């Protein structure tokens, strides 16, 4: 069964005013359990609005959202319980830190869930380990930490709620390259370890290509496409027309193919490209040897 399902989800900002804007326009999609979905789109394409619907922070103007087959907003009393199934990490999540110590801050979500003390402790320590925070950091004030550490504490705060679905809105923005790859790495680690569903909103095609099993491309409040990375990047021309680009490595291979090299053009990670090139090279040397003999 799909863990997230939206049916004709539509959201309109400022209905009845001159500032009326359709932010999400009849979006229907379903996300299966255990998937790693990348969400890509321009600023203002509706991706942030879309994900805020998935845990009931926004109420759809039209359409429905189903989490685990249960409709959000059908019963307001259940909203809170369903909300705990979908963990949402906002952009710049470090701005939500408020407790005296990192430990307490990570424990804030689990505490709101009404979990017993020892369970909270287990979750805090486990997620702290997962995001690479040592015990002495847990006792520090979150305001003393570096930017990357703060970010990890904030993400841990949501992970500790152990949601079935973890949604992250540009978790790596504003960090240096090292911090970026560290955050993205720990998200992949989390996905591998927990086998939970993850949705990653990003600007970077490279990040999404590297990690995701499926990609959702949003354009002008609508779903542009929702498919495997290979299928999505196969439509490079169309993506470029809406102002998004395919990963650099995909472009390199498309050019190589156009120049007559015998390579596929569905390469979208550097690792796969390397294998492909090595394979093509060894084939070529083998052929040359044969012809020499």
């Amino acid at each position, binding site marked *: 069964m799909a863990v997230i399902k939206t049916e004709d989800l539509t959201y309109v900002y400022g209905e009845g005013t001159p500032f009326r804007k359709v932010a999400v326009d009849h979006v229907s999609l379903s996300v299966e359990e255990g998937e790693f979905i990348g969400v890509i789109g321009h600023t203002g394409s509706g991706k942030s609005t879309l994900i805020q619907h998935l845990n009931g922070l926004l109420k759809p103007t039209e359409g429905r959202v189903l989490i685990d087959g249960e409709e959000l907003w059908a019963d307001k009393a259940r909203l*809170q319980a369903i909300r*705990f199934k979908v963990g949402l990490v906002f952009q710049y999540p470090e701005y939500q830190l408020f407790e005296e110590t990192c430990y307490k801050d990570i424990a804030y*979500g689990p505490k709101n869930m009404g979990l017993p003390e020892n369970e909270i402790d287990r979750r805090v320590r486990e997620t702290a380990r997962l995001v690479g925070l040592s015990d002495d950091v847990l006792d520090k004030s979150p*305001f003393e930490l570096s930017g990357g550490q703060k970010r990890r504490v904030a993400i841990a705060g949501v992970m500790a709620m152990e949601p079935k679905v973890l949604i992250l809105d540009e978790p790596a923005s504003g960090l240096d390259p090292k911090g970026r790859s560290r955050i993205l790495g720990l998200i992949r680690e989390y996905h591998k370890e927990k086998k939970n569903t993850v949705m990653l909103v990003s600007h970077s095609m490279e990040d999404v290509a590297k990690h995701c099993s499926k990609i959702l491309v949003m354009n002008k409040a609508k779903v542009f496409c929702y498919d495997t990375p290979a299928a999505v990047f196969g439509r490079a021309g169309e993506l470029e027309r809406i102002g998004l680009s395919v990963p650099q490595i995909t472009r390199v291979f498309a050019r190589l193919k156009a120049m007559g090299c015998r390579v596929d053009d569905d390469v979208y990670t550097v690792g796969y490209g390397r294998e492909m090139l090595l394979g093509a090279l060894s084939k070529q040397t083998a052929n040359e040897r044969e012809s020499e003999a």
Partner: protein
Amino acid sequence: MLKDITIGQYFPGNSPIHRMDSRVKLVLTIAYIVLLFMADNIYGLLIGIAFTLLMYTISRIPPVMMLKSLKPIIPIILITSALNLFFIRSGEVLVKWKFITITREGVDTAVFMTVRIICLIVGTSLLTYTTSPIDLTDALERLLSPLKKLRVPVHELAMMMTIALRFIPTLIEETDKIMAAQKARGAQMETGSIMKRAKALVPVLIPLFVSSFRRAEELALAMECRCYHGGEGRTRMKQLKTSAVDYIAIAVMAVFIAGVVVVNHLTKGA
């Protein structure tokens, strides 16, 4: 949610009233208040009402806004009229029931006071409806600039007001974001007792304070980088200038004040 709150009530437009020099508008608003207090009977107030209606018509502010401006002071109006109605004991008695005595003078005063308060609020609201908050602080700074001689930091105060006004929408947006983030972590802000809800605000207020301080520091730095060092010798991008419209407005106001004086005199004679 929070976005629905309008801060300041500026109603953009291009009527003659909108185009007036904000200093003149401010001074005339004060003159208007004086007019209302000069009128010592209901006929004088009628002139005030006429003036208010005339100005609203010229400004093309929707009449609904007049009612909207009155909404917050309804309790004040009710209390004042009730006090006047029940506690003025002089004059011809109209109703006498147990301890309640209502006299003609009481009714007159109650009506008079109510009309005066309504005129006061509706009329002065027009200033904020037709002048943007920034223009208003500008006007204040100019009008108060003589106080600089008395070492009152007029420019600094005006700058502080301008910055505060500028950052209100930013703060609202920020609050919205933090609230959403904490709600996603299970904070309950819409249910529970008042104490519980107040407690739920802590996770919103602390991050808000932290980011406000950070933003203030950044802004101060950015201003210093552009060589801001107080009001000394600064010129303005937007020069305040009086034009024909302002002189006409002053003349109209003078006529109405004269009208009130005449009416006061006539009714006294009668």
